[in-house]
């Protein structure tokens, strides 16, 4: 396959960026999208140009490092897929593809396609944990967890923290990310003691960062590589409301 790429190039956070056009020749349909970029980068380096910087690590859709806007869609055209798992067989010979970094004022561009997502870590630091210390935990089977709760909790816990939900949201909201963590812990008996405090603190931190508000567009759910449901946002809002009225 032959493809034409328009890739966002930006030398650093302080400089302005622009799209640069590249021809990718000899693309195999079995390649992943990132492997296609690897091959292009080898070519660029060979020609004495600077390769395109992009975040990636596990390349199996679980570490959450990678994330590109591909033709305006977070992680590209395939549902429930991180960029690293996107295969070129989904594209056709002669396609023109636009590749951009996550777009959100809360995720400043570091270089080219690399962005700074540390705001997500700060949301977790605000209360996205169960406050137990190492040691002293009761026997694991002392806390029975109904299978349905465990499964539902796991649905939320599957979040890989890639930030696609933010990038896809017209408001740049981090509600799906925050709701997933609040729900993961709030659905388990172990998470009850801090449930409402957690919701208040995490939502407050989310508001402190430069994320927008949620107006239930639902783009986040469509872009999420783990297909996390926006039902969790409703759950977060319920917990937050209850917490606001009772504390």
């Amino acid at each position: 396959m032959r493809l034409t790429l328009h890739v966002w190039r930006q030398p650093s956070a302080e400089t302005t960026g622009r799209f640069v056009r590249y021809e990718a020749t000899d693309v195999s349909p079995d390649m992943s999208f990132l492997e296609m970029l690897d091959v292009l980068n080898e070519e660029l380096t060979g020609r004495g140009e600077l390769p395109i910087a992009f975040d990636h690590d596990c390349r199996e859709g679980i570490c959450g490092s990678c994330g590109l806007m591909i033709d305006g869609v977070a992680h590209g055209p395939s549902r429930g897929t991180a960029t690293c798992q996107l295969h070129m067989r989904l594209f056709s010979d002669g396609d023109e593809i636009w590749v951009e970094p996550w777009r959100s004022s809360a995720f400043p561009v570091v270089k080219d396609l690399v962005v700074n997502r540390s705001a997500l870590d700060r949301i977790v630091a605000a209360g996205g944990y169960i406050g137990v210390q190492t040691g002293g935990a009761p026997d694991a089977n002392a806390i029975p967890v109904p299978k349905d709760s465990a499964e539902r909790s796991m649905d939320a816990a599957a979040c890989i923290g890639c930030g696609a939900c933010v990038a896809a949201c017209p408001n740049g909201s981090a509600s799906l990310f925050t709701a997933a963590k609040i729900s993961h812990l709030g659905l388990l008996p172990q998470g009850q003691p801090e449930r409402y405090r957690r919701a208040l603190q995490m939502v407050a931190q989310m508001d402190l960062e430069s994320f927008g508000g949620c107006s239930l567009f639902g783009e986040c759910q469509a872009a999420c590589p783990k297909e996390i449901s926006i039902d969790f946002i409703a759950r977060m809002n319920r917990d937050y409301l209850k917490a606001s009225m009772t504390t």
Partner: protein
Amino acid sequence: MTELRSRVPAGPIDRKWDRHRFEIKLVNPANKRRYTIIVVGTGLAGGSAAASLSELGYKVKAFCFQDSPRRAHSIAAQGGINAAKNYKNDGDSIWRLFYDTVKGGDFRAREANVYRLAQVSVNIIDQCVAQGVPFAREYGGLLDNRSFGGAQVSRTFYARGQTGQQLLLGCYQAMEKEIARGGIAMYPRTEMLDLIVVDGRARGIVTRDMVTGKIEPHLADAVVLATGGYGNVFYLSTNAKGSNATAIWRAYKRGALFANPCFTQIHPTCIPVSGDYQSKLTLMSESLRNDGRVWVPKKAGDQRAPNDIAESDRDYFLERKYPSFGNLSPRDIASRAAKEVCDDGRGVGPGGYGVFLDFRDAIKRLGRQAIEERYGNLFEMYQRITDENPYEVPMRIYPAVHYTMGGLWVDYNLMSTIPGLHVAGEANFSDHGANRLGASALMQGLADGYFIVPLTIGDYLATASLVTVRSDHPDVVATVKAVEDGTRRLLSIGGKRTSQAFHRELGKLMWEHCGMARSAEGLQTALSRIPELRDEFWHDLHVPGSGAELNQSLEHAGRVADFMELAELMCLDALHREESCGGHFRLEHQTPDGEALRHDDQFAYVAAWQYGGAQSAPVLHKEPLAFENVALSQRSYK
């Protein structure tokens, strides 16, 4: 001369850890905040160590090269974590987990460490549940278990196919809790490029900020390396692209001994290579072997579609060769058996390097829904990569490099030969011998980080008299300068080839000669080619860009430079070990029916290598291994 003192406490094996915990020195709670501890790496071992040390009151500085500590490669572990809970009432015990691990490691691990690992395994599960790890449950609300390779009991706890992710998020959340409290200072996108040793003790690290390029020293009272394994020396492996050996290799060059470097694990169930552009290999959890049956056609060159091949024309080679363990044979054995049938011309798929993993019978027996519940996400991942539906067509799998049992040598306190330098998780050598059993890596990482290092590091701090070291100390200045010079050197070669190209060539060489089957001849070939390749690297490397910016080519080049040196040590170790054991299979040493043949009379020891300088060969030290509780025997899974 460096002396290897394992510091294994005296007494019966089941009392050693208790006794040690009582005998080691403690740091007074009020004094802990006076100590700074550096933790490099935020996977299961590093994340759990950083959080636990901070909870105890130490000042912790944690480093990772990813943009967030949540992304370390532990996250990709799929199948599960072992613990001797015996919740299934099927005969499990601490002793059995200990026994299985020593035997599974082909009698090349230190008994006392393994016993302790089995002991604390039960606390790990308690800890993780308390943290909110959503392990799989039964309808009654209690924890579910599954079986895994190398064991005849069901002792593996899991969270769908994302156990590593959930355990790591537990560590990460504990870390964030401590970051918020001010106990941990977190340095993401920061790479350790050297170890600072002052008066023979580890006193800090030199790092490069991967965004600004700033190189600077960080000083501390003790350093913990939890930087994972070195499987990426093979270029293609199941490791993340960023996984590297730089931290442990630089520590080795500063005097830490490197133990059993040739012990690498090849995982039997990975998706086969599809082309030259391939950047990594994807593992399919070993848990698939619970219900999938491994086979190849009986006849070489059988080109029929798998579903057209009659039962009588199929060779279920694991079930045939190992009737009692069958498809659940340990990883090294299953991998080698797959290689054998492919070398025999009976491999399947493009290139002939693949075997089938077939769920037809399991689907017939349990129904598609049950299989979907157990392996749904794995099947989906497979289909995404290969464009084939494993519910209808058998999966194709082939072994790939997955884990390295070797690593920096540590004593019972997990301290290396450099006082103050502790090593945890895959980065050390200690618990898995020559082969690691499935679901034991997560167990070891968390055992080291939650329960062992936080305690043993206190013993070091309480007994060492540490002088204050400032950043203008000549040893600190010299180490920083060495890193600056190294970075400049990589950027100034001005050659033509990229570090990727060199890495691929090194990987091919290693896979061919130091992979699943090794011979003296092949290892000699590699040993003569590696120095040449290294020379070419230092003369013909091209690194674009500068050092004062985010430069992924520079990062990679530095890692490849270290792999180039480590590869040679691996081959040297593999050549010296004139026996076969676990993942180390020497063609010259096999039983008449092709199984690994150990030579316990000569090789029941840990081979710990000491850096000899740029011009001299490394020096071999031996830590003899005594097997007082598990009798040495030829492993048999028949």
